[in-house]
């Protein structure tokens, strides 16, 4: 509570007390007024009664009518006054006395009349004077008695009226006294209270502020309440709080500043040491190091650079490139500097600097030095003489180019070899196949079959060597397309089942539940690995079971685990790693007994690793082997797996519907082979020798399918295919299916075929079955371009 509030409270309390007293004061004033009026009335009555007594005495002495009339008038006047006054007298006691007075006055009046009558009788003749005179005495006595009574009552009323005045006066005085007392007490209380409070609080304030002034900043004034001085105390406390905080902050600041100075000193010493170290490094470095200001004047140059320039490095300070180098070189260097200062980040650039033996090439790392606002204030450079490296690099580049050239030559050789071997192999195999379809005796059939199998074996060897060489040369590219892993495994197993059955083996398939329906990957290569492993399993197993299993690789997300197992001869533990090396088989005896190039597992391993997986074998000699490999795949939800031609290979379509086929082939043997393949089919073959002829025939005639060799004189297959597509587009004609044939069997051919607008790509050698399946595929789905090799 504030002091002002307390003062106000005391004043209000005093005023309330005075207000409470006011009705009493008013009442006492009214009472005093009433008593005064009574007193005044009684004085009038007494005056009249005295007058009346005087008149009565005058009458009794002389019995004059004048005195009698005056007495009667006065008596009547008194009674009338009392009658009127009675209405204003409130107290029952007073009224009773007044009424009694009135009664006595009336009685006195009556007695007076009797005295008058008696006097008149006395004056009459013949009346008994003695009796009348005695009666007169009795009546006079009674009149005196009444008068005495009247006087007594008047006196009593007068005294009571006096008493009432005194009482009212005492009330007035008392209430005024109370008024004065209450007000005095209020004022005194207020003064004492306020002065004590203020004095006490001022002492506390004085003592507290004195302590604070002496430096006792931890001292706080203790002053309860909510008055102004308590507010002052709180303000002083708040001020002291802040003062203390500031003082503490200053002390802390001082300590920190000292500490900082010490640290600064240490840092300075360390910086000196580091500068010396840096200077030593700079001066002992055989690298050119310098700093320039933004005007590109040298500010710092290491000893190596100074030596290079043939000057004392102190003298170089403030010089520009123009002062040191020929104009064109200086211009180039400064242009580079400006680029770095403009771009604001380090740049690596080649620069030349003059040496005694001519210009040397440097790799200069130039960097801007930025201030706190990110603006460059200097340019630094560390330049390394790479003249030797440059020369080495050039020789290496030459070597690399030579190697690449050699590699290209090798590839070209392989490609050429592939084409050159495959083309005659195609003919050999095709002819042997055709030969087997003719009537032969047993010996001839055996020779022809041996020839055909040997050709196939040779082709496999060639394919393995080609694959291996491509992998080794790094030219092996994997394709990625959607396929069903389960379907792929089942089809692959299906391919090998007949071979297995021929050896009296049972081939099992185990597909785990919950595998993805479609994934992305190179299904052809996976199929190649599985075929290799299954082929090995069948080859090395004489009885029992071989099988392929597909499931999840444990602990590896989105990774399939393939397993090919057998109950064959098994592999010795020490050989389980070696068998994946190139040209290694179990032992020399195996090669002799089972044949093979020893490249199959090596290629499989390389393919698995190219696809991001790993391959390993668990084997027990004499019991069998389990080959495992993993395949991390990409999910291919929403994609449809490519339907393999094999799905409809047994469709009667080809046999029932004859196609008009244009074959563009420059090699006569191949023309003969195709004619032989299609001789027993409903298809009709039209032969041309190159692409140009093919284009002309297509423009003139209608063919169901066009088959073109890639390599042809005058116009190769791809050019001709593009020309046909263009002509079709220009004439708004439907696209005729185009099958391209190539003996290159190299990666990239498929893409080239697709780009040329071909419908299907077939690699040589092309057997009859392969050709017929290809025809079925394109004739059934002419709009679909599928260039996957079949």
């Amino acid at each position, binding site marked *: 509570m504030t002091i002002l509030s307390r003062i106000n409270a005391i004043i209000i309390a005093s005023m309330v007390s005075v207000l409470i007293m006011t009705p009493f004061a008013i009442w006492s004033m009214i009472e005093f007024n009433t008593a005064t009026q009574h007193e005044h009335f009684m004085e009038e009555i007494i005056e009249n009664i005295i007058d009346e007594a005087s008149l009565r005495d005058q009458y009794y002495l002389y019995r004059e009518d004048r005195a009698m009339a005056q007495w009667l008038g006065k008596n009547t006047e008194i009674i009338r006054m009392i009658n009127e006054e009675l209405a204003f007298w409130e107290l029952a006691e007073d009224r009773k006395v007044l009424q009694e007075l009135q009664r006595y006055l009336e*009685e006195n009046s*009556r*007695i007076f009349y*009797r005295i008058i009558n008696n006097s008149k009788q006395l004056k009459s003749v013949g009346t*008994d004077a003695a*009796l009348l005179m*005695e*009666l007169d*005495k*009795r*009546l006079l*006595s*009674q009149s*005196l*008695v009444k008068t*005495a*009574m009247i*006087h*007594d009552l008047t*006196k*009593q009323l007068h*005294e009571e009226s006096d008493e009432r005045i005194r009482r009212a006066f005492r009330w007035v005085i008392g209430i005024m006294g109370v008024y004065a007392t209450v007000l005095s007490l209020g004022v005194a209380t207020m003064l004492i209270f306020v002065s004590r409070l203020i004095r006490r609080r001022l002492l506390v304030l004085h003592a507290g502020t004195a302590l604070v002034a002496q430096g006792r900043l931890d001292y706080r004034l203790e002053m309860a309440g909510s008055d102004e001085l308590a507010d002052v105390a709180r303000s002083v406390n708040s001020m002291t709080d802040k003062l203390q905080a500031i003082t503490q902050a200053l002390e802390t600041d001082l300590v920190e500043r000292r500490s900082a100075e010490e640290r600064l000193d240490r840092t300075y010493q360390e910086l000196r040491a580091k500068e010396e170290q840096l200077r030593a490094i700079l001066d002992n470095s055989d690298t050119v190091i310098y700093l320039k200001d933004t005007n590109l004047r040298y500010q710092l140059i290491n000893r190596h650079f100074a030596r290079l320039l043939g000057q004392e490095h102190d003298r170089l300070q403030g010089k520009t490139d123009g002062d040191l180098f020929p104009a064109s070189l200086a211009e180039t260097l400064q242009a580079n500097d400006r680029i770095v200062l403009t771009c604001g980040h380090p740049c690596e650039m080649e620069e030349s600097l003059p040496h005694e033996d001519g210009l040397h090439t440097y790799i200069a790392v130039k960097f801007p030095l930025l201030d706190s606002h990110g603006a460059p204030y200097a340019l630094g450079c560390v330049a390394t003489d790479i003249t030797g490296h440059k020369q080495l690099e050039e020789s290496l580049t030459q070597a690399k180019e030579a190697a690449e050239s050699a590699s290209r030559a090798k590839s070209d050789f392989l490609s050429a070899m592939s084409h050159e071997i495959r083309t005659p192999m195609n003919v050999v195999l095709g002819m042997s196949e055709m030969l087997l379809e003719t009537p032969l005796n047993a010996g001839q059939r055996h020779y022809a079959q041996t020839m055909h199998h040997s050709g196939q074996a040779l082709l496999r060897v060639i394919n393995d060597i080609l694959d291996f060489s491509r992998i080794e040369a790094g030219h092996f590219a994997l394709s990625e397309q959607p396929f069903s892993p389960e379907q792929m495994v089942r089809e692959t197993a299906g391919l090998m089942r007949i071979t297995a059955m021929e050896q009296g083996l049972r081939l099992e398939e185990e597909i785990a539940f919950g595998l993805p329906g479609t994934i992305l990957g190179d299904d052809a290569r996976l199929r190649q690995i599985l075929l290799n492993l299954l082929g090995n399993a069948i080859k090395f197993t004489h009885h029992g079971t071989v099988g392929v299993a597909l499931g999840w690789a444990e602990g590896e997300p989105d990774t399939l685990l393939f397993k090919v197992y057998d109950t064959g001869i098994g592999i010795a533990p020490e050989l389980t790693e070696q068998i994946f090396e190139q040209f290694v088989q179990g032992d020399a005896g195996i090669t002799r007994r089972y044949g093979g190039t020893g490249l199959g597992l090596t290629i499989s391993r390389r393919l698995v690793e190219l696809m991001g997986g790993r391959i390993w074998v668990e084997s027990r000699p004499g019991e069998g082997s389990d080959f495992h490999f993993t395949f991390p795949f990409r999910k291919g939800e929403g994609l449809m797996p490519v339907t393999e031609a094999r799905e409809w290979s047994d469709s009667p379509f080809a046999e029932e519907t004859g196609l008009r086929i244009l074959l563009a082939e420059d090699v006569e043997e191949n023309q003969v082979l195709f004619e032989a393949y299609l001789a027993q089919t409903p298809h009709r073959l039209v032969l041309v020798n190159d692409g140009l002829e093919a284009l002309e025939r297509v423009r003139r005639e209608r063919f169901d399918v066009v088959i073109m060799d890639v390599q042809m004189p005058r116009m190769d297959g791809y050019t001709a295919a593009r020309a046909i597509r263009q002509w079709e587009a220009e004439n708004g004609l439907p696209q005729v299916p185009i099958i391209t044939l190539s003996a290159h069997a190299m990666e990239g051919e498929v893409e080239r075929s697709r780009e040329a607008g071909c419908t299907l790509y077939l690699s040589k050698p092309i057997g009859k079955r392969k050709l017929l399946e290809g025809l079925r595929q394109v004739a059934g789905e002419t709009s679909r371009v599928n260039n996957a090799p079949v």
Partner: protein
Amino acid sequence: MSGLRFVLLLVLVLSGCRESANPEIHKLTVAYTTQPQCTLLHVAQAKGFFAEEKLDVQPRLFTFGKMALQELLEDRADLATAAETPIMFNILKGEKIFVLANIDTSTTNNAIVARKDAGIVQPTDLAGKRIALSPGTTSDFFLSTFLIANGLSRQQIHELPLKPEEMQEAIVHGRVDAISTWNYPLTQIVQALGANGTTFFDRDIYTETYNLVAKQEFVQKNPAILERFLRALIKAERFTQQQPLVAQEIVAQAIHVNRELVRSVWNNFGYRIVLDQILLIMLEDETRWAMSHGLAKPAAMPDYLSYIHFDALKAVKPEAIRIKR
């Protein structure tokens, strides 16, 4: 020395206080009457106001004040009550008595009751009739005054002196034609006569006073007791004014009369303790009457003021003293 004096004075004051605060019970014989004028004494006795003042009051009740006063004069009572008439006669005879206080004043207590069958229908009819009175009492004085107020002299009637208690029988049985008497016999006789009775009042010709009287010697010896006695009467005066119905019951039981009788005459009396001028006027007036009628020897008018004792009443109720001295 002054300290010792102060201590002694203190001891005296304290002992005096103790004595006055705890007085001994004083036995007091008071002769008073069964008349309405003695109401305050009956109330004081019944309400224990005397006992409160340590007074053991022994009442000696009489039918009228003259007999009670006689009891005092013959030393069988310490105090007595009587109207001014017997007091006046006894002072004229030389009795040393003091009037201590006037305990009642009335102008309607006295009346003439007459038998109609005696041919009395108006006051003048009293001439020649047998009228009973109690000599030496207010009955005597009232009759005399009533007669002259009606133009008759005492010689024109046949007076028959009777005690108040004898009057009812006398008038009821026709041995007298009229009587001059006071209450309660007055009302009782009026009721007894019934329609045959007629009553004459005249409030303008007589004011009766009733007074407390003691011998001067007693007064001088027992001033404190008189104060206590008067204080008890003043208590009774206040009680009677505040609770008149209870006071009426008390009186009815004390004098063995019907309460209705008491109530019927109640307003004719004052029941106030005073000493006023009326007593002196009446004593002197009656003295003149007594001497002129040969009831007392002619002599100088006594100084009745000296027969009034003021100190006792002044001590307990000073405002009641209205006699101008």
